[in-house]
């Protein structure tokens, strides 16, 4: 694979981190530059592109009318899918979603769902019969590490930009009217990912750091600082102390990002 990292560089990265420094000059808890653009795909109900350093993720949302789940008859439905598009990295192969893209989609989904960011009860058209279904499609366009944070951010940005069609019910039929209302979003869950390298935690790992890391942990927090989703990944481990430290930093970092983006 062409994205192989040399042993010399692996060592450099690990040794620098032990000294509290990173190869790209960042502090251990510093994000790369974050750029968010919304409303870039006209045909989508909502869309956004996020640049996290060189990592680039686009999210488009579509809204359709569908059936609610039987255990939540009064609520709309959220469906998140992620595509690791082959043009984004030499390691991405065409074909059905693999475990990495499924995990990515499910982690993004969990952050939005568990924080109840979307007011699902406002997506109900006819209880038990018709609700709005929100499709969130995550499209990774360039992979330079930390796809989870970039995708979660892009998904939220796209949802904040999503419009629901106006409708009225005539003789039991749903008629779409002209005009839109914004999708009701009440929370802004932000996911912060750490890599464990040389027994230290670093925020927002880039690709080469990911290739050196022993393990990864992603923590999503809500506006009030409560935690709403966590995912550990990678074949290493964390000590209980590291986990609690990560949770604390995740809360601070998420607040910083919300402030920066005026959310």
């Amino acid at each position: 694979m062409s994205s192989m990292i040399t042993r010399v560089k692996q060592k450099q990265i690990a040794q620098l981190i032990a000294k509290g420094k990173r190869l790209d000059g960042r502090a251990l808890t510093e994000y790369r530059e974050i750029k968010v653009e919304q409303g870039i795909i006209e045909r989508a109900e909502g869309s956004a592109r996020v640049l996290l350093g060189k990592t680039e993720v686009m999210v488009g949302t579509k809204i359709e009318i569908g059936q609610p789940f039987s255990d939540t008859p009064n609520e709309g439905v959220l469906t998140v899918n992620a595509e690791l598009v082959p043009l984004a990295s030499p390691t991405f192969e065409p074909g059905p979603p693999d475990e990495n893209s499924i995990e990515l989609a499910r982690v993004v989904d969990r952050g939005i769902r568990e924080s109840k960011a979307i007011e699902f009860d406002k997506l109900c058209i006819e209880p038990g019969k018709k609700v709005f279904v929100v499709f969130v499609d995550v499209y990774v366009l360039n992979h330079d590490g930390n796809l989870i944070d970039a995708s979660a951010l892009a998904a939220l940005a796209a949802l904040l930009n999503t419009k629901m069609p106006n409708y009225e019910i005539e003789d039991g039929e749903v008629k779409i009217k002209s005009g839109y209302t914004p999708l009701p979003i009440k929370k802004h869950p932000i996911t912060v990912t750490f890599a464990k390298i040389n027994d230290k935690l670093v925020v927002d790992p880039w690709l080469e750091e990911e290739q050196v890391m022993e393990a990864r942990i992603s923590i999503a927090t809500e506006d009030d600082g409560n935690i709403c989703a966590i995912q550990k990944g990678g074949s290493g481990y964390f000590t209980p102390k590291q986990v609690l430290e990560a949770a604390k930093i995740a809360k601070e970092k998420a607040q910083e990002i919300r402030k920066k983006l005026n959310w």
Partner: protein
Amino acid sequence: MSQKSEKLIDKKGLRLDGRKPNELRPIKIEVGVLSNADGSAYIEQGKNKILAAIYGPKEVHPKHLALPDRMILRCRYHMAPFSVQERKSPAPSRREIELSKVIREALEPAIFLEYYPRTAIDVFVEVLQADGGTRCASITAASLALADAGIPMKDLVAACAAGKVDDTIVLDLMDTEDKIGAADVPVALMPNLDAITLLQMDGTLSLEEFEQAVNLALEGCRKIYAMQKEALKARYVNVKEVEE
């Protein structure tokens, strides 16, 4: 999760199945239950009934998946169609694919993967009946199956969830608590090394509640660890006792 105002904890502070907040469900573990597998284990935790089997280490097929410097661990977590109330399609769901991955990553830190390059170990987990907390029970059983297969390991991996139901932090959530509780935090631990190898969470917890939940889950892991060791030894020690 949550939003229902159903009472999951009664006035006496007991849960739906009569447990105290920090109490585990009854657990039964047996090691070496499948004769064809290189290692195997069976666990019952509450109504969970789960089988884990190990095949390997063996040569990797297809060959290009082999790694020159370490062995690969492959894991399949699968639920039987009859394991849940409504029949589950036997085709692997997205949930099962994700769980297969996190279970694998919870076991990998425990194995000396570098000992046998170019080989593979297959971990097969079949959930025969599900009652909440299947990923944790699966890890508990699979790590015993690995030890039973004679795979060199740094430690056993014990797993247990904690969570929040009503306003209480509780240990080892069963199905109903998992579905309508406020949060669920599954944790896997290598107790002798104090290493957390699986951590997930969904629901809502404050930082303080999260810390409480993690600590309670770790306590549960340590209790399960003791049971794991007993179950593993029982495979050999019983023979001796019968004899003498």
